Each structure stands twice: as C-alpha cells, then as structure tokens.
C-alpha cells in the first residue's frame, strides 16, 4: 500500500474525529412543512421540450460558423512522426487543419476526477495536441475545420498521420495492480476487526469472483462544443454538466482571466456523469476557433463519443462473505480491481461493502491498473454500481447457503451506525424500503427453491438486491432577483440534464419564499452567475436548496432595511408567505407593495450554500431495494425482465413525479448493464470494436416492463428540504437483482456481466 493511500486513510480518520466537534447547522423547517415540496407537478420545461423548442448546444449556429471534425489516432501508444495535411487542405471548403505542430498553446490542467489539482473540469491532465504523444487509440491527433459538416468529415479522412507505435498496456491484469491514493474519496484499503477469523468461524461462506465490463453513458445527445472568440472574450456553448468548472479549465488552458470566459450550458441532452469532465475536444474546439478567427462547432460523432470520451472502468471483484447460524455476517472481504490511466481516477467498487451491512470483520481493498485507454469516467454511481453487483450477488449466494430468504438475510444485517466509521447516519430508512418494496412486489409469494416456475418455454424467477449511494452536499451560489411586479428570478450556474432540477427548485423556492410557482423563473446554465461546484454526485437538489434558503434570508434582511412600515423588524419576526413578509400576528406587506413603498425597481441578492456541518459529522447516504422478476427462455437463454418494484429512501421527495422518472431511468440503465451493455476492446490494438448504438446495445422500449417506484419519503432531519440526492441511486443493485432472479429462475449463477444468452446456454446445455 502506498504512502499516499496511507496518508489519505489517516487524514480521513482525523477529519472524522475533528468533524464530531463541528457545530450543527440549522434545521430546515421546510423539511416537514406541507406545500409545493412533495407535490406532483409537470415539468416546467415540458412544453418547450415536446415542441422541439429547447436549444441544446449543437442547435446554435452563429454567423460565419465553421464545422470541426477530429481525427482519431490509429495506435494506442507512441508518437506522431508526421502529419500530412496537404490533401485535406486542398479539399473543398477546408479552412484549416490543426495538429500538434500548429495548435495554439494550451496549458496543462490537472484532471478533475483525481482531485489532485484545482477542481476545474478537465477530464485529464494529458497534453492533447500540445505534443506528439499518443496516449490511447482514438485520441484526437488532428482537427479539421471546414465550411460545412460534410466537407469537414470528408477532409478528416484525408489527413495522413504517421506514427511510431510503442507497446501499450491494454488488458486489466493483476501484475501491475497497485493501491491508489484514494478511490473517489473512499479509503482504498480498510480493515475493521478480523475478517479472516470471521470467515474461519463462519457457519456459511461464499467466495466468488464477479466482473463487470467497461460501459458507456451513451446519452442521446453527443458531446458538443461551440466556441466563439470576441477579442479576448471567449464564449462557449457546451454540453457541460459542470459549466463553472469548464470556465475555470478554459481560463487556465488559454491563459485568460476568469471573467473573460463564458460557458453556457442551460440544457443538456442527458449526462449520467459522462459530461461531468471536459474531454479534450472542448479545449480543441476553442483552439480551433482561435486559429480560424471565427466561431467553430464540434459535435462528436457517436463513434467519437466512445473514442474521445470515457466510460465506466471494467471491474473484477473477489468477494468472500461469512455468516453465523443466525444469518449474521461475520466477515465481508472485498478485493476489487479496476482500470485507470495516467491520471489515477480510481472508482470505489468497494463502496457498498464498506457501508451496507453491519459486520464485525470488514476488509475492503481497491486496487487499480494503469492502462493505455481513454480515461475512465464518472458514470451513475461510480464504483458503487459495479461493486454492488458483486456484493449483492454474493449476499444472494450466502442466503441460499444459509437457507434464508435473501430479504431476511439483509434485514438481519441492517446496521445502526456506519460499519466503517461508527458514525451515526443522518437518516437511514432502508428497513422501511425493504418492507415497502417487498409488499408492493408480492415478494412473499416467491417459490422457496430455484427453477420451480415454468411457463411454456419460459423459466420464471424473482430476485432482489439492496441499493446504496453516498449523499453529499457541494458548493453553489444563486442570484435571486425580486422584481417590482413581485416576480422572482433565480439565476444559477447549474443546468437541466433531464433530472428536473429546474422544476424541483422552483417548487422548493416557491414554498421557501411563500409565492405561487408561476411567480418564479429558474434560469440556469450560465457559468458567470456564481462559483458553483455541482459536477454531479446527485447533489443539485439539496445544494441549490441550501443556496436559495440563504438567498431568501438575505432578501428578507434587505426588505426589512427598506423604508417601509416593516422597517426595524428582525428577520426572525417575519415569515415569507402570501407573496410577502408577514409577522405571526398578520402584520405585513406583499413583496410588490414593499418595493413600491420603497420606490425600488428590484432587489437582487446572492445566496450561498451553507457548509453542511450536519452531514460532515455524520454518514449520509441514500438507500433502496429492488425486486425483479425475469423470464428466461429455456431454449435460447434470452432473458426478459417482466416485473419490477424499486423502493427508495431518498429523504423527503421534492418533486415526486420527476423523482419516480429518475429512479426508473436508473433502473433501466441497470437493466442494460445486467443484460446487454459492454464495450468490446481489441486488446491488441486498443480499438473499441463496437463504438456505436447499433453494436453497443442499450435498452429499448421493447426491453422495459412497467416499473413500479415507491418512496419511503421520510425527511432527513439534517439536510435542506429534508431531501437527499437520488439521481444515481436507482441503478445501484439492479444488475445483482437481475442476476439473482436469473438464478432463481434457472438455478444458474452468472457472475460476469452482461448476462447474455451465450453465458446461460454455455453453462447448461439443457437450459
């Protein structure tokens, strides 16, 4: 184990101790108050979305626009020895060919995911098109700019690139594995109690190896950047999940003052983590626009989204579990391996094993292997999603060993405190989620033995698994403007990915300020509003709510300072309700009247999210339980998911209609992960073989049953709105629930994802 990983572990423990001494923050009264929060409402951006009226990044076409197409490298590692652009330059409409020989200077920026440098959004620290080095197959080695997309695509094929190839490391093997400094803020190696003794003394044990392949987000909107220079001012439309981070990165890369860079990303066509970091094409588009002296748009082709942006790293987990005769866990051992690149982004496949079950002996160890592939990326539930496939499959195997219902096994091992740190939870209602899900699904009716239900050529089975995801509050600020007509506009540097952030925040802000929803406009996606660090992590709902809460308090103070009959009252003496400020005994004025009396056209305040002391000193997470029914074709090995119930503890649910949709979305991506999704890499060349939606399969309408979603819906006493972030939770545990259901249907245990028909057929000829 490296010194840095020891240092991280020690640091975490010290911080944990110190955190106990922190004050408790304010309890949010909104968390239990009825109102707009918790109401079923339609998406506010719905009418624009169903009429094709939303402008996504690639929909902008300013005057004098030129189109850029990147040229992918044909080797996985080595150097570019020569680039012959002459044929491309001679092709009709070509404006320029940018290579490492003529590209404008781009300074190195640290990779976001490693958290080793400033937290700007750069996906990687590698110098793309700044040197002749090639780091992976498909890396951009040139960019062609032309008058039209067709001309650029044609000319890109005419660029002749010569290489000096070097041997590349492409396979994930044990040999070069090492322990990373940290695994996305989880300790890479943790030992609690004596897991070895726990295994030795166990009545039942399970030891198995589980694997998950590299997977891609495949948001339907491909990554796109449109860059425009006006002198030293740079305006960039981008598909960024983290606009402020892209602003910081571009300022650094091009040596610009922060205020000169404007990143606009109000609407994103799906992200799932794949648009959290800025991949190399973002800076390359900016560089190309600088060279061209005109606006340049670069939209990655679907194939390029595989080559030039990263997906989920493949994982291999060795899991050993032990339990006593009462079904109480005595040991959890989880050794996980994943890939990373020169930038050490290590996903914590061990995360679920550290936080899900009470157990006296836990040994969790995450290792990584550096490979010469495109860097891996955050993908919905990074680490915890593939790792939970291993743990939750192993728990199912243990239940069969013990002769216990897998739900009962989980209920017997539900912890009272965090199993690793011993800290209390802010709230944890997994027990309630298990019960709610089981009742809704009808879990009790399940056959007690595998392969017991047959319907024609279909073998029918049910399986379940738990879900867990760490919950965090990050950093955000909003600008809130109260206008003379009493309407309120809230500006934010976050964006709308489809999660429903703008609708949920409008609901919460309406209740916070005591106005109807139609008095509030939530404006998003402008990096210049305020420093906002919500790159993902399911953190938007609570973090923004915290910032808006602060903005509300500042607004109240400003209003009470005006020359009105309320002047002199303290903030604590008024409530924000009925579209204004009122004391408990009913004295007060509407916002509109207050501004009118003071002769003010508007008031603008900035609200900043609070330091989340409550969650820093406790363990905070979201939880859930999946119950799945599958039918397996006994002749072909085809698996159909036919029934689903997911029950979740995400604190108080702010916008239930959209929250349910988001959980379904996670479950459907999990169905893809379980049954079809896999990036195929030619380990000789480093080429991704199935770089397209015709070959990389994601679930279609025909693959998805009705999915029932239930929420425990109990407020977390420690968070803004009583809410917790649920964007990633839905996918966690899904693959295991399906694998467990397949075992119940067929008696076959498949431990390697995806569970394609060949794996079932090869295992059992009689299936």
């Amino acid at each position, binding site marked *: 184990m490296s010194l840095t990983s020891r240092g991280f572990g020690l640091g975490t423990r010290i911080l944990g101790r110190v955190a106990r001494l922190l004050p408790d923050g304010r309890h949010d009264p909104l968390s239990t108050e009825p109102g707009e929060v918790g109401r079923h409402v339609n998406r506010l951006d719905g009418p624009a979305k169903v009429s094709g009226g939303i402008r996504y990044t690639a929909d902008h076409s300013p005057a004098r626009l030129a189109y850029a197409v990147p040229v992918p490298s044909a080797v996985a590692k080595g150097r570019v020895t020569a680039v012959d652009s002459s044929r491309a330059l001679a092709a009709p409409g070509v404006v320029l060919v940018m290579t490492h020989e003529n590209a404008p200077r781009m300074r190195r920026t640290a990779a976001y995911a490693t958290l080793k440098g400033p937290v700007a959004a750069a996906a990687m620290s590698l110098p793309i098109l700044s040197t002749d080095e090639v780091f992976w197959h498909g890396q951009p080695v040139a960019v062609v700019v032309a008058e039209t997309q067709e001309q650029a695509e044609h000319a890109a094929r005419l660029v002749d690139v010569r290489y000096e190839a070097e041997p590349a490391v492409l396979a994930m093997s044990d040999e070069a594995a090492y322990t990373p400094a940290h695994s996305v803020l989880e300790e890479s190696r943790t030992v609690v109690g004596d897991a070895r003794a726990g295994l030795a003394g166990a009545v039942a044990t399970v030891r198995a190896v589980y694997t998950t392949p590299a997977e891609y987000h495949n948001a339907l909107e491909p990554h796109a950047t449109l860059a425009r220079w006006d002198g030293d001012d740079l305006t960039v439309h981008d598909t960024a999940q983290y606009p402020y981070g892209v602003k910081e990165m571009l300022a650094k890369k091009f040596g610009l003052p922060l205020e000169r860079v404007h990143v606009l990303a109000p609407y994103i066509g799906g992200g799932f983590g794949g648009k959290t970091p800025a991949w190399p094409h973002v800076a390359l588009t900016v560089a190309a626009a600088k060279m061209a002296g005109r606006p340049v748009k670069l939209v990655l*082709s679907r194939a390029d989204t595989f080559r030039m942006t990263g997906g989920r790293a493949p994982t291999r987990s060795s899991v050993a579990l032990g339990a006593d005769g009462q079904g109480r866990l005595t040991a959890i051992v989880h050794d996980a391996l994943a890939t990373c690149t020169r930038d050490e982004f290590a996903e914590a496949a061990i995360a679920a094993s550290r936080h899900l079950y009470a157990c006296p002996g836990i040994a969790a160890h995450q290792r990584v292997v550096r490979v010469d592939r495109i860097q891996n990326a955050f993908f919905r539930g990074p680490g915890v999603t593939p790792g939970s496939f291993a743990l939750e499959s192993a728990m199912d195997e243990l239940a069969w060993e013990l002769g216990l219902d897998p739900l009962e096994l989980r209920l017997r091992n539900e912890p009272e405190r965090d199993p690793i740190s011993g800290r209390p939870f802010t709230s944890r209602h997994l027990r309630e989620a298990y019960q709610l899900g089981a009742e809704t699904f009808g879990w009790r009716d399940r056959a007690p033995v595998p392969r017991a239900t047959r319907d024609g050529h279909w073998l029918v089975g049910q399986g379940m698994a738990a879900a867990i995801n760490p919950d965090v509050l990050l950093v955000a600020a909003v600008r809130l403007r109260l206008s003379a007509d009493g309407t309120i506009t809230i500006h934010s540097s976050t964006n709308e990915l*489809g999660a429903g952030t703008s609708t949920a925040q409008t609901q919460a802000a309406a209740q916070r300020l005591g106005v109807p929803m139609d008095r509030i406009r939530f404006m998003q996606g402008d990096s210049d509003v305020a420093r906002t660090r919500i790159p993902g992590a399911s953190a938007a709902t609570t973090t923004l709510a915290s910032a808006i809460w602060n903005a509300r308090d500042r607004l109240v103070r400003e209003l009470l300072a005006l020359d009105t009959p309320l002047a002199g009252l303290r903030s604590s003496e008024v409530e924000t309700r009925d579209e204004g400020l009122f004391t408990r005994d009913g004295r007060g004025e509407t916002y509109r009247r207050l501004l009118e009396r003071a002769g003010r056209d508007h008031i603008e305040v900035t609200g900043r999210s609070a330091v989340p002391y409550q969650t820093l000193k406790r363990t905070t997470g979201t939880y859930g339980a999946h119950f799945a029914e599958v039918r397996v074709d006994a002749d072909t090995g085809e698996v159909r998911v036919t029934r689903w119930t997911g029950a979740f503890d995400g604190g108080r649910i702010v916008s239930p209609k959209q929250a349910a949709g988001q959980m379904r979305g996670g479950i459907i991506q999990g169905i893809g992960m379980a049954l079809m999704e896999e990036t195929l890499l030619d380990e000789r060349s480093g080429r991704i073989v199935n770089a397209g939606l015709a070959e990389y399969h994601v679930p279609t*309408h025909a693959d998805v049953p009705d999915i029932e979603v239930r929420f425990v819906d109990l407020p977390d006493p420690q968070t803004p709105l009583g809410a917790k972030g649920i964007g990633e939770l839905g996918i966690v545990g899904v693959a295991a629930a399906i694998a467990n259901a397949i075992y119940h249907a067929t008696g076959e245990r498949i431990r390697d994802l995806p569970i394609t028909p060949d794996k079932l057929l090869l295992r059992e000829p009689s299936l």
Partner: protein
Amino acid sequence: MDGHIPVHLNVNGQAHALSLDPRTTLLDCLRERLGLTGTKKGCDQGACGACTVLLGGERVNSCLVPAVQCDGMEVVTIEAMAGHGLGAKVQEAFLTHDGFQCGYCTSGQICSIVAMLGEHRDGRPSAVTEDLTGPVALTDAEIRERMAGNLCRCGAYNGIVAAVKEVAAG
C-alpha cells in the same frame, strides 16, 4: 456551388428551393440549412431514432436519407406537430405522463408515435403481432415493439407508453 444539386422540399407546409451538397442528409439539411433544430442527431447511423421525421407521411430516420432523394416530397417535423391534431394530443399526453426527461429524444419519439398510430390504424402488423387476420389491438407489447427504434437513454419509456395509450384510446 460546384457539384450541388437543386432540390425542392416542402417542409411543414412551406416550400424550399435549395441547392445541396449531395452528401447532405435530410437531417443536416433540416438542422443546418433550414434552422429546424427541433429534430436531433443522436447517432447519425439510424440506430437511435432521435432524428425521426415524417417523409411523405412515413416515419424515417432522417440521418439515413440523402436530402437530394427527397426532391418534391413533403416533410413534417416536430415544429409542425402543435398544428397537427394527433401530434398536439401526443405532446399533451407526454406532459401528463412525463414521457421524457432530458428532451433530446422527444422530437423523434413524438414524430414516430404519430406515424406509428397511422400504421396501426391502417392495419399494419408488427413483429409481435400474433394474429395477422384481424384487427390488431394496440397492447403494451405492440406499442413497445413498434416504438423500439426510438431510444430514450433517460428511460422515460413507461411514460411514453402511457402517453401512447391515452392518445390511442381517444
């Protein structure tokens, strides 16, 4: 321009006389030449359905159709759906049933549904239709099969199927 081909298109009831690079797809023609950006490019290879429009009344992946092949034809895109009786109903049902999240596949889903309901009305079977002799009920399985060419990565499929059922039920 050199090598360009004259093309007449009727898009959403409006006539356009264009001179097009023969490599231009109907999708890029709509988006980059006519500014009709409601139609989206998701894969540019006919695998995702985000670019679905109606061409001569039939649903097509506009990324697979060279624009010069559409000479003299009628194209209907999402921008015209609000004025299209069935299209407006589908749009409304999408709002009610939350048939979308990020919205990127939505234009294609809606255009596809409008054409699919027409195909069903005309008695065309799908791959899951068992009885080819009589009228086909628009069951969940039929809707899912007929819409399988329109991917939604956010996973709004349940809402979309509910929206189709509501519209089909009148």
